[in-house]
């Protein structure tokens, strides 16, 4: 039963993003289908990445929207370098840094609002979000980005290294260190609850 619930509640990370330089060029030429394809393929990893940067669901959503708008307005200027996701992550990162100065809202505040937000497709699980809040506070930025992209979007470590311009060894070590932190955090929580 638990296994069944897990399967229903946590779909396997999707690895369907298939974007290339040509897709960005088509978006630059106002091809709506191309933008639709891009959105379907990158929305999940892009949000996960932005969330890892902002640690704030609302800010992450704002930045997510702005990132798409920036893509649409600058896609025609994009120079094919074979790493379109690296460019998109860079836009998101720059927007995140720009918004960093604005007042932060805590994840806990967000959770209260999100519970009643009709935009979210899946049923809201308060425990999951408390867990998410813990994760965001326990890990540093690199660990957050790498773990979220890997676990939520199914990015392989070498793809993360490529798109975030990091050495693979950095990605692997940060991932491993972050996961260890989370495991210890969970064990500590279990011990406390007993």
């Amino acid at each position, binding site marked *: 039963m638990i296994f069944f619930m897990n399967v229903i509640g*946590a779909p396997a990370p999707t690895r369907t993003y298939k974007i290339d330089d040509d897709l960005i060029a088509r978006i630059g030429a106002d091809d709506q289908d191309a*933008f639709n394809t891009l959105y379907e393929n990158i*929305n999940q990893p892009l949000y996960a990445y932005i969330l890892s940067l902002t640690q704030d669901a609302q800010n992450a959503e704002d930045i*997510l*929207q702005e990132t798409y*708008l*920036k893509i649409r307005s600058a896609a025609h200027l994009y120079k094919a370098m074979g790493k379109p996701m690296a460019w998109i992550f860079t836009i998101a990162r720059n927007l995140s840094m720009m918004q960093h100065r604005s007042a932060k809202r805590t994840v806990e505040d967000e959770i209260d609002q999100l519970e009643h937000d009709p935009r979210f497709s899946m049923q809201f699980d308060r425990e*999951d979000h408390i867990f*998410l809040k813990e*994760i965001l506070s326990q890990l540093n930025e690199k660990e957050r980005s790498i773990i979220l992209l890997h676990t939520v979007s199914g990015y392989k470590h070498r793809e993360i290294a490529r798109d975030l311009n990091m050495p693979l060894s950095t990605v692997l070590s940060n991932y491993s260190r972050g996961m260890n932190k989370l495991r210890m955090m969970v064990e500590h929580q279990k011990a406390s609850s007993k």
Partner: protein
Amino acid sequence: MNRRDIKQRINRAVRQITPNVYDHVASVPVQKMAAHDYITRQDLPEERSQTTWTLGFAPAFASLAVLFVAIFAWWQFLRIDSVVAVDVNPSIELRLNRISRVVALQAYNPEGESLAEAVTWRFSPVEDVVQRLLGAMEQQGYLQSDSSFLLLSYQQKNQSRAEALNQSLNKVVSGLKQQNPDMVYIQRVEIEEIAELADDYGLSRGMMQLILKAQILNPKYSVEFLSRLDLQTLYWLSENAMHSAPENTMPESTPTPVPTAIPTLSPPTQVMPTPRSWEYLCMEEDDDEVEWDEDCWAWLWATCGEGDRLNDDCVQRIVNQCGGDLDDCFDD
């Protein structure tokens, strides 16, 4: 909770809060940018620095790698690491690389040149080349196991490699040594500056070292004079000092008449292939010119001649009695 559970939980939590913003971002009209701003620029500082670094240093690294390979190849295969000289009458010097392959050959006389053309030597192991040279010398009559003196010399700074080279050369001439051990001499060239000196005199390093040794023991002979002697005599002089004999020992017997069978020798211009030639005893240097003393030579034959050869023991005795200067005995 294991790693898999943690990952599933993160995945579920993030998916639950991922907003669907498509309608908004797809429908809002946007103004096309004229140029990238700092948000959309592709050359992020991190990226630029890495790219520039890579592009800037890639050719340098490539050049360094090529240079390194070239230096290594030169060091391993082309740099002269040791030298082996083969002297009989033909005089040849072999230059070896680090792995004892012959990378260069120098002949010091016409006989050596003709031999060099007769054998293949380029990048061959030194043992093979020496073997081929000795074979060719034998074929062309330069090397006779019972009468030709063979001098093999090697120069190598490293002690262990020098020993290895010595062993290799000994192995090559083991047959010759068995037949006539006195006619084969292998020496290590130990004087570093000898190459330049040998070049000046147009001699192999082995010959040059032997000459210097002979001159140390016999300072009255010049390099030019010693270089004209046959190898066996030169070797003898390099081991024996002509002045070491006591001076009061004059030959008591009256020289016998000159035998009719005296060989008519002109001053030797080439090394004689005799077992031991004593011509040098009757040579005199005068202002860098070497003069041949016919009377001295006749007297020597009269005293020590045995058929068509000189009795070595007799000549040696005379040399010892005369204190190395045959003129004094002869004039008396």
